[in-house]
């Protein structure tokens, strides 16, 4: 398998039983990513961008189409039919997801959150401590905040923590769901530096961005979406 990720003819239909309705979120999606590629998706809100990412991550169940992922552990695997156990493993070790919202365990400090990401991969305690601090430092999260609960953080701080938590794992495939949406320029630049570093390290990424300028400087290819379908792609 040449590609790390190969989405073929993906469609997602939500069946709403109480309304007796079916909603076509996306249809006929074909996207392929080679190892180390960074591909961006743009489009209006509601055009189905996040649906694609959530389908890859297993948050949405897919009835039509396939998502072939070349796993380090399992080899080529179709994510739409993978078991929950397989998805849990892949999420812990291979596929990262950064959403625009921080959804975390309540009453867990920022330091603990990042550290847990590493610990669940089996990183030894000391190394996890060290890498956690390095990551928090990189994102210039105020040292005073390290041991407090993220529920009290500002939007930008939450987001930076969210990215730190996903990136610290150095995943093989990183899904970015508008990771810079509510960041100020300074924070955006920090994310950019990290993304560039990840690109250098060969991380494959699929990201949704509103900020076209931000994306164009980084992406290998860009797709735009309209009404649940890919309308065109541009390669840089």
């Amino acid at each position, binding site marked *: 398998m040449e590609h790390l990720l190969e989405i073929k003819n993906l469609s997602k239909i*939500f*069946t*709403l*039983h*109480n309304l007796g309705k079916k909603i076509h979120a996306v249809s006929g999606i074909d996207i392929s990513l080679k190892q180390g590629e960074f591909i961006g998706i743009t489009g209006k809100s509601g055009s189905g961008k996040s649906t694609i990412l*959530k389908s890859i991550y*297993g*948050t*949405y*169940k897919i009835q039509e189409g396939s998502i072939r992922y070349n796993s380090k*552990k*399992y*080899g080529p695997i179709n994510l739409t039919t993978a*078991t*929950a*156990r*397989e*998805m*849990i493993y892949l999420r812990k070790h291979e596929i990262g997801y950064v959403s625009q919202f921080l959804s975390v*365990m*309540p*009453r867990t400090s920022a330091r603990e959150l990042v550290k*847990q990401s590493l*610990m669940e991969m089996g990183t030894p305690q000391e190394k996890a401590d060290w890498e956690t601090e390095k990551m928090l430092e990189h994102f210039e999260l105020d040292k005073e905040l390290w041991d407090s609960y993220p529920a009290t953080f500002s939007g930008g701080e939450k987001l930076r923590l969210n990215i730190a938590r996903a990136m610290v794992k150095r995943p093989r495939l990183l899904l970015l769901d508008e990771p810079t949406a509510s960041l100020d320029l300074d924070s955006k630049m920090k994310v950019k530096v990290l993304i560039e570093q990840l690109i250098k390290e060969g991380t494959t990424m699929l990201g949704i961005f509103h900020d076209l300028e931000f994306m164009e400087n980084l992406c290998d290819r860009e797709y735009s979406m309209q009404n649940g379908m890919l309308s065109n792609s541009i390669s840089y």
Partner: protein
Amino acid sequence: MTGYERPVLSVKHLNKQYGRGCLKCVNKASLLKNYCPSCGTVYACQDISFDVHPGEVVGIVGESGSGKSTLMKCLYFDQEVTDGEAYISVYENGEKNLFQQSAQQKRYIRNNVMGKVYQNPLLGLKMDFSSIGNIAEKLISAGNRHVKMMESRGIELLDKVNIPVHRRKEAPKKFSGGMQQRVQIAKALSNNPPLLLLDEVTTGLDLSVQASVLDLIKELQRELNISIVLVSHDLSVIRMLADRTFVMLEGKVIEEGLTDQILEDPQASYTQQLVHSML
């Protein structure tokens, strides 16, 4: 899946019915929900199968009367199953059906390889015994006879669940609901069981106490890598703790999957209704 991963608990085709059944309900077609109107038999659990892996938290959600607690009772031998199989990897190398063991063996399994925390502390604790005595009871049942060792283990556990050690000789009836729940957890953990059954452990506790019990469970799971089956009708508890979730309705598992998938993309009509009822 490459590389065979061995489950800690494996349940196969578990059935539990209350009542003898009759010719009319034998094929379960004429049931009203899970109740036979002719003979009054209740089919509380119907053909339930699942695995729990090492270190995994499996959540079970469903409305009252869906069979969640019955399932837990069957697994802890509080009730006899009608039929079905269950295997635990650390008991007889996971080759013997637990439900077919003698009463004595079942007691051994309960006391040595499982721990259970009940919604109602009255069921899990002897309210007039001292708290440390409650823990010792489980240790004694498991064959311990060394008083000093049991005492130090008791103190260690009470400390772990944040019960002030100087109150160890007090009876749980003097404790608040949250403290009683924590003593139950300490008792359930006393023999380092690989499997913990938690039945609505936070129901009825106020928010801050609920939080401390949940934090404790999460911490224990992370530290000790225990496998947990967690029954709750509170979806936020499930979201916080469970890796995978089963949805039960009328005695059957109607949906299962990753917890975030169940909550964000529920498939069954009932699950959608349940998720949409969330505050």
